[in-house]
């Protein structure tokens, strides 16, 4: 990804994030969050993580945001009123963020910088050659690699269902538990 696109999408993401905490109306905050996540998905795609970028849009900007908006409308929230109270939380929050930011700058200035490794057709073809045992020659992954494109979704699927099979099934149980939990929580109490 060219540098100017990186900064463009980062700016969209960070402005969206600032707007989430700046707006008084919860619906505006939710929409600002969609903007922020679209910028983030563009950054993912710039890192050639196409699958993660797409599910970021589908899950966050699609499902989770609709859930948020639905709850906001269900509760019928009004704009937050201006509160005349102490500035202790404001100062505490800004100091916390300032300390975190100084630490970030400190760590990054000592961190050896690294440019992104190349992912051109030659390297991909070589990768197909090296990992011939893992991805046999007639497989889709190998075909895509030899033709010079990165088969992102196939590679993720392969990793997910070989190396990470047990965590995937545990995740299925977790989703089932959370579904049951939501149903139990939102059931009307008897008394």
């Amino acid at each position, binding site marked *: 990804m060219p540098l100017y696109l990186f900064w463009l999408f980062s700016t969209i993401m960070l402005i969206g994030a600032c707007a989430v905490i700046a707006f008084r109306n919860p619906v505006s905050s939710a929409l600002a969050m969609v903007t922020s996540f679209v910028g*983030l998905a563009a950054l993912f795609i710039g890192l050639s993580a196409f699958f993660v970028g797409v599910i970021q849009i589908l899950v966050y900007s699609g499902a989770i945001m609709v859930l948020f908006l639905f*709850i906001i409308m269900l509760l019928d929230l009004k704009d*937050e009123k201006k*509160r005349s109270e102490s500035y202790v939380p404001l100062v505490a929050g800004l100091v916390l963020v300032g300390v975190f930011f100084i630490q970030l700058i400190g760590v990054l200035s000592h*961190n050896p910088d690294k*440019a992104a490794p190349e992912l051109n057709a030659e390297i991909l073809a070589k990768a197909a050659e090296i990992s011939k045992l893992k991805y046999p020659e007639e497989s889709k992954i190998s075909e895509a690699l030899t033709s010079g494109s990165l088969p992102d979704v196939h*590679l993720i699927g392969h990793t*997910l269902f070989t190396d990470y099979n047990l965590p995937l099934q545990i995740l299925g149980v*977790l989703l089932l538990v959370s579904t049951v939990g939501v149903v139990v929580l*939102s059931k009307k109490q008897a008394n």
Partner: protein
Amino acid sequence: MPTLNDYLLVSGLLFSIGLAGVVLRRNIIIVFMCLELMLSAANLTLVAFSRFNVTENGLPDYSGQMLVFFVITVAAAEVAVGLAIIVALYRARQTIHTDELVSLKG
């Protein structure tokens, strides 16, 4: 081409904005959204590490993206349960502002 430190800087900024939102805002739904922002900042770091660390065959290290996949799924489950708790809270107290929920203050 942006370098690794650029991505780490941007993701650190996103995390600190989310942290500021959690501390500053009183509306519990907005606090929840800011938690999502912080999770996404961690995701950006993971995807950047996955892209910048190639494995021996020259492809990106997909273990990082696996962790992102799991984080997104767990975050979706967490949002569903959390919003159900917020609805239950609103039913019990008719408010979702954290400075009005002071039963435990003693």
